[in-house]
């Protein structure tokens, strides 16, 4: 494709009530309601919804959507490899790794001499459970902004995992309950624990089992995982038990021996947020880019124009403008401040 200096992507790519829509290709990206054709960046529920007619995504994301929504998850899937091009009319679309969770992709859209990249959710640091983000030159970059404030600087993963292991050493009689999001965070925490040498069984709340099994079937080794419930809770002293964040403070968490309540999330950087959630051991582990990663990515993509969505748009828009990038906030409906 020959790129043109006067590209005006806002003529053919726009925000609608359902989300971002590409008119000449007649498809939506991560639409919030059912659509005839949808390009899905990744399997988190605020991006991948059930019931679209035709879905273009990666094979891993399709597998995740099937696991989450069952047979009704979509009319038909077209699974593309990273880098493989699809054409819808005179629009070319391909997916590139976003480094967010297994199967996550950026969407590269080329039309009328203009290249647009929709980041979806992404991070730049290494993740043993998914392919790393690949930057690509473009004319318009549409970025997420979940942690787009300079107070958000995620520390090194290994240090955070070491905090958990240290606590286990100090409190060998206490169960360590770690709140994790079911898709991505759970598997990443497990993989990081394995890399740090934790080879004991890791115990799982029922809601995490299926996605962990799916990751394993897609080639991500997670080691010895076991379900925990009922009477077995009593035997969890000194063990690591993973559960969804919502289970930390509900009835399910009763019955564990003197649990240390931990949570793996980028929000844990703000102590009063952690404290409000009743978290004793905050682990700052995020699947989203922190402030420095966002800045670096804007630089790496080299786009003269930036649309910011999905989070704290204002700060990133301000920053980008101060660096001469033509930036604006694009508030898309349907995205929640979950995940992280």
């Amino acid at each position, binding site marked *: 494709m020959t790129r043109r200096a006067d590209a005006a992507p806002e003529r053919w790519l726009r925000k609608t009530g359902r989300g971002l829509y590409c008119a000449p290709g007649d498809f939506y990206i991560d639409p919030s309601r059912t659509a005839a054709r949808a390009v899905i960046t990744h399997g988190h529920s605020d991006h991948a919804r059930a019931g679209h007619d035709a879905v273009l995504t990666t094979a891993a994301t399709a597998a995740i959507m099937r696991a989450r929504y069952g047979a009704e998850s979509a009319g038909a899937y077209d699974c593309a490899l990273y880098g493989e091009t699809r054409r819808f009319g005179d629009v070319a679309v391909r997916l590139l790794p976003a480094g967010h969770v297994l199967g996550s992709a950026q969407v590269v859209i080329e039309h009328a001499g203009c290249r647009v990249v929709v980041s979806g959710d992404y991070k730049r640091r290494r993740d043993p459970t998914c392919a790393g983000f690949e930057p690509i030159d473009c004319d318009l970059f549409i970025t997420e902004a979940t942690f787009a*404030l*300079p*107070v958000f600087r995620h520390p090194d993963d290994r240090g955070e995992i070491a905090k958990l292991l240290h606590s286990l050493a100090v409190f060998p009689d206490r169960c360590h309950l770690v709140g994790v999001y079911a898709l991505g965070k759970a598997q990443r925490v497990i993989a990081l624990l394995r890399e740090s040498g934790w080879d004991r069984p890791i115990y799982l709340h029922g809601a995490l089992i299926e996605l962990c099994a799916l990751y394993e079937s897609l080639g991500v080794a997670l080691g010895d995982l076991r379900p925990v419930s009922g009477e077995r809770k009593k035997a969890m002293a000194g063990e690591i038990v993973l559960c969804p964040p919502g289970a930390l*403070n509900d009835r399910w968490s009763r019955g564990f021996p003197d649990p240390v309540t931990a949570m793996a999330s980028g929000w844990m950087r*703000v102590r009063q*947020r952690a*404290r409000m959630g*009743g978290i*004793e051991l905050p682990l700052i582990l995020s699947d989203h880019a922190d402030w420095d990663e966002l800045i670096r990515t804007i630089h790496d993509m080299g786009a003269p124009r930036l649309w910011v969505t999905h989070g704290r748009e204002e700060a990133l828009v*301000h920053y980008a403008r101060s660096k001469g990038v033509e930036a604006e906030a694009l508030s898309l409906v349907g995205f929640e401040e979950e995940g992280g």
Partner: protein
Amino acid sequence: MKRFARLLDALVYTPSRNGKLRLLADYFTAAPDPDRGWALAALTDGLAQRQVKPALVRELVERRVDPVLFRLSYDYVGDLAETVSLIWPGNPARNAEPDLSEIVERLRVAARTEVPGLLAGWLDALDATGRYALLKLLMGGMRVGVSARLAKTALAMTGAASLEQIEEIWFGLEPPYLSLFAWLEGKAGPPAVDQRLAFRSPMLANPVELADLEPLDPADFRAEWKWDGIRVQLVAGGSEARLYSRNGEDIGAAFPDILGDAKFDAVLDGELLVLRDGAVAPFNDLQQRLNRKTVTARMLADFPAHIRLYDILFEDGGDLRRLPFDERRRRLERWHGRIVPPRTDLSPLVPFAAWRELASLRDAARADGVEGLMLKRRDSAYAAGRPQGPWFKWKRDPLLADCVLMYAQRGHGRRSSYYSDFTFGCWRGGAEGAAELVPVGKAYFGFTDAELVEIDRWVRAHSTERFGPVRAVEPGLVFEVAFDSIQRSSRHKSKLAMRFPRIHRIRWDKPHAEADRLETLEKLLNP
């Protein structure tokens, strides 16, 4: 500084009281003098440092970070110390990390113009956790869920002295508390303080309900009104006097009128009130006098303070605390008749023969600054703390109203990134003119953390305007508000002021148009 920073961090993340006590006790045992003493002062608010004003901190940070990005971050995080600690571009290579005592002692002698440079140097040298501790230390408002009493309880765990013993000499101690720690460690006797002006741990009552009282013999008990002020202890030694809150905090600076008239030798237990022409003024009036370092002549005249006496602990140096209540009461009456001290009167006993009779007296007494009743066994000695059995407080049931949320304000401490202070209103007008909401009160407790998260989300999704930390919201969320009484007030648009309002229930289900009207509240006014 690392140790203190780690302590603060651990306190923030340890929800349980016992866990906090253990952390504090461990710290007081392990940390050296004088660091631990300064830490104790910081935790009990006795470190009157405050040389560092928030404006200075903002100025320093805005020289290093884009002010717009700083403002947006502060708006999100909500707490200045935390925002600055996270956003400050650290430069640990530049300086050695300072000790806690080095910081305190250096600032004591520093000229005002030196403070910015010192502070910036320390912020550079510390990591985010250390910066947070430093800023909390210097700006105050620690808010790590540690009350002065909890810190003193932890001290009692570390050594030879009981909590009561520590509280009774606390008023005479000063940071960094070297003599206190020496005593706790058994290296020295109790610190020498002038016992004549000492605070004595007060006797507290347990809440009770009619069903608990019925098996008890009314003849064994005396009843008094529970006045709607604050419980105080007035200690006078002839030429000098002190006024303490029930936690032993010296609140005398705000009450020179009371202290100036205390020309006797006695320790008295009573309720601090604002009294005009013999009538108890609304609690709000008393609040105008509280928490002040000085008061103007105008305030003394507008809000005259008064103590309504419940009990006498010492008379002319003699300790009466072991005497039975009836005997102390007799002594109190005789003493008061003899001295006739100005700005005091006796809280009358309420005669009664049966519990149900007393219950109806209690319900009828919503007026005149009465919160409920105190019940005291006639043979009870005056025992420090909250012993089970001899004293009860029997509060009235609260009044309830359905109100509509109008404004939400950011909270403090662990609630600083949530909208947690709520102003709510009731409907006025209607029929021909349009109905409008008028604010009737403000409350910041009564809900669980989980509910707060939900309300916060609702507020953010339904706000119509923002003024600094406050958001106006569209009418839509109904609170069932509980309050002890309602009074006329010229300071509010509704001309009403609730006493002790709290959120009783969140009525997610209730249509806001069906919330209460102002007239309904007016019917609850004291006669």
